[in-house]
């Protein structure tokens, strides 16, 4: 057992000695580096290291949480936390933390991420690729992020183990004109095979194609969504599969377990896989993470659970704890049987949308919302991209859109950017019919 795991276990033992019914402790030592760039130059480079132990304690179903930095003042912190539990209130829906001893699969994190000497080179490579594609006047901006976290988790209920989680992300937006841009990302858990030029090239390609945009028109369109945009859509649907959001009516999936919620071509999984920026071997209760099929051929199979929400819904945890909020790790949409070019060719009169931002709901239960496509927006006529467009809004319904998916590509890309395509996902191109587009008047 490593020294840090032993110290984490000591926190749990001390909490139990105070009289707590259950104690969870998770120590995270994270090293993060980020290069931010705009106007083809590096604006700032940032490094932030954190060394924190998160402690969750329950006593007579009262759940309290704290954090301890660097194992400093452990006794004081735990004493305060236990006193806090004594004056807090019972949570009758707290059904205890996961019990048992588990064998965890080996972490596959890439520790070389931590020792990357010159991250600026990755940025310059992406910028040059974008300029090569869209021309020397192309203006680019974005971020390059590397992150490595050592995680040590101990529960008084049995689970104990260590994990290392690594992430690499390059996000680049290229402008070939004030109103012509393309955005692309390269995301991975490892530097092996990580290709910043691939994102640069794609952002440049879209930016070049997006030149001289015309005002888009209101109406219903068949739409091909790029994997980056699909990442945002998956972000919407995934948050609604958390049992917590179902319980507070922040979901289109309330009372729909077992029902058909999408077209039969759709299968969605939560998979904290080794390739993903969100790779992990256990959840926040120490339960080994697993593949969960959320929607199978259009049918809603499960919500995402921790131990407590699982008991409320009379099922088993899906290893998605969050102590309060069960959460997805990495969403995968199963690939389809045609390639993206064939998908485009199926569209007689429609749109190809590459990215979006600022998604907001009128009603999460009914699913009415809008989001604003940005970067390349293209009109498709008879299976070919004909014209770049601008200034449109997608104003539709999250449930109806899920049901209107008519095509899914073979190709998939691991995507994540900022808060807009989060959590990370493995996203294909999708074709959706009758998407409602509105414009400013």
């Amino acid at each position, binding site marked *: 057992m490593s020294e840090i795991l032993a110290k984490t276990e000591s926190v749990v033992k001390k909490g139990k000695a105070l009289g707590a019914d259950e104690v969870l402790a998770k120590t995270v030592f994270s090293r993060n580096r980020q290069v*931010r760039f705009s106007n083809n130059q590096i604006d700032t*480079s940032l490094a*932030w290291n954190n060394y924190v132990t998160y402690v969750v304690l329950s006593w007579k179903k009262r759940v309290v*949480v704290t954090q301890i930095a660097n194992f400093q003042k452990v006794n004081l912190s735990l004493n305060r936390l236990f006193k806090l539990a004594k004056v807090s*209130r019972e949570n009758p829906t707290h059904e205890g933390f996961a019990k048992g001893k588990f064998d965890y699969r080996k972490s596959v994190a890439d520790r070389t991420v931590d020792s990357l000497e010159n991250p600026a080179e990755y940025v310059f490579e992406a910028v040059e690729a974008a300029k090569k594609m869209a021309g020397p006047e192309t203006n680019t901006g974005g971020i390059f992020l590397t992150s490595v976290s050592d995680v040590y988790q101990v529960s008084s209920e049995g689970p104990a183990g260590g994990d290392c989680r690594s992430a690499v992300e390059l*996000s680049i937006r290229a402008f070939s004109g004030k109103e012509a841009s393309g955005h692309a990302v390269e995301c991975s858990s490892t530097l092996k095979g990580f290709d910043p030029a691939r994102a640069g090239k794609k952002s440049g390609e879209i930016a070049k194609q997006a030149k001289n945009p015309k005002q888009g028109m209101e109406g219903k369109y068949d739409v091909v969504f790029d994997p980056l945009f699909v990442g945002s859509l998956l972000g919407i649907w995934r948050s609604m599969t958390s049992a917590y959001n179902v319980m507070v009516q922040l979901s289109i999936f309330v009372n729909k377990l077992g029902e058909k919620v999408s077209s039969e071509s759709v299968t969605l999984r939560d998979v904290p896989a080794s390739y993903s920026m969100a790779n992990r071997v256990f959840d926040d209760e120490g339960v080994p993470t697993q593949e969960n099929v959320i929607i199978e051929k259009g049918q809603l199979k499960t919500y995402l659970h921790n131990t407590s929400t699982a008991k409320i819904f009379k099922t088993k945890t899906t290893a998605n704890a969050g102590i309060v909020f069960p959460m997805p790790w990495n969403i995968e949409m199963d690939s389809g049987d045609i390639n993206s070019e064939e998908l485009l060719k199926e569209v007689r009169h429609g749109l190809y949308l590459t990215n979006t931002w600022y998604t907001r709901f009128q009603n999460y239960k009914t699913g009415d919302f809008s989001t604003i496509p940005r970067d390349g927006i293209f009109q498709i006529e008879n299976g070919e991209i004909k014209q770049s467009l601008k*200034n449109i*809004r997608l*104003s539709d319904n999250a449930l109806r859109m899920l049901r209107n998916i008519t095509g899914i590509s073979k190709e998939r890309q691991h995507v994540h950017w900022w808060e807009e395509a989060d959590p990370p996902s493995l996203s294909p191109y999708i074709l959706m019919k009758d998407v409602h587009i509105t414009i*400013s008047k």
Partner: protein
Amino acid sequence: MDKDLVDFALSYAMSKGIEYAEVRAHSEKSERLAMKNGVLDAFSSAVDSGFCVRILADGGIGFASTNRWTRKEAKSIVEIAYKLAKMAKRKYKITFAKEKGVKASWKVEEKRKIEDISIETRIATFIEMDKELTSQGISIPGRMFSSGTSLTEKYFVNTEDSVISSYVPRVSAYGFITVVESGKSEQAYKQFGFTGGWEALEEWGLVEQMINEAKMLQSVIKEARALTPGKMDLVCGPEVTGIAAHESCGHPMEADRILGREMSQAGTSFIYPQGPFWLGTKIGSSKVNVVDDPTIKSSYGYYEYDDEGIKARPRYLYKKGVINEFLQNRESASKLGTRSNGSSRSTSYDREAIVRMANTYVQPDDFGEEEIFEDVKHGIYMKSFTEWNIDDKRFNQRYVGREAYWIENGELKHRIARPIVETTTPIFWSAVDAVSKRVEYDAATCGKGDPEQGIPVYTGGPMMRIRGVYMK
């Protein structure tokens, strides 16, 4: 907070070949409760404390932070920040607008000290609110509340001899409810924020506000009618005025956006050098005066010095309908040949300070609230909003009414279900022809930065009448 260690880190940074350095320590004691459907899920209490160094060297910026308070760690983050600054290899060197050093210490008083309020009282306040809410005979199957307090101590030093200490207490609360009636649902989200002590709870009238929201949503389901789309007048309540001020005035006036520094995430601005809109360009009617003011006492976005050590002051963004002043930090001000107006804020020791709003609002004018309606033949009164968004250049925006009414010949008639205004920034602000006397504020958490830095702000304004916009 070990201020000697912070001073040591600055001294160590000065031993390097640097143009500028600052060290900012940030210690926050926070307590938060989370409740759903009447049940307290968890109560958290924690102290998060650390410090960061930002170095300008060879025209590049490096930033590093730690939560380990040791000399070894202080030296380490200086070394990292210095190395990162040198890595930039910029063709165009970054400079900061000139400022004199400042020595200051400021704090916000609490009429009712947060630390004197027992945990039992805090929890009971929200449990009781939930009981009151659910005893109104309204079906509210989804209820989510959270509330937090924070006591933030900061210590800032830089190589220009600035030494600034501060203490800021804040109280916040969030409520989200789903009302169901006859198989239909409506939802509302309310946020409350205050800089000061527990007296915030008396000012908010939380219980009354949430009950009113629930009753309103029930009435909307029962009574609201669909709107026949067309051009008509729109009267915005303060909540709608405030979000428009924030989204289509405050954000596009952030100088870092204007200069492209946020181009990949939060986006750009319709205002840019050599573009159709710049300082001095008309963007709205002469009734439009939008201010961003961090100095409003007790406001959620209150501060006296920003996170670059610059004295806070009101910023007059749109003045009589003309683009007047951008929000600046020292980096953007230097590029634009001006001075910082104290708009640089950070949420934590491990986040760089960037250009942010504080409290953005439309200034009042001389119309009485009844006068605003008097002259409207056909129109909508949008008192509050639900869905909203705006494109990343801050030009195409949309607000959907949560509570809204039909106006006919100056009188409020029936409720309207989710009316929508979807228009451009110049159309919206140019059509303002009347502004009322009384300003109201709403708390909000403004998102920007990567990693995200949700920062406390107020949005606000009076009632505002907009002539002849397309509504649907």
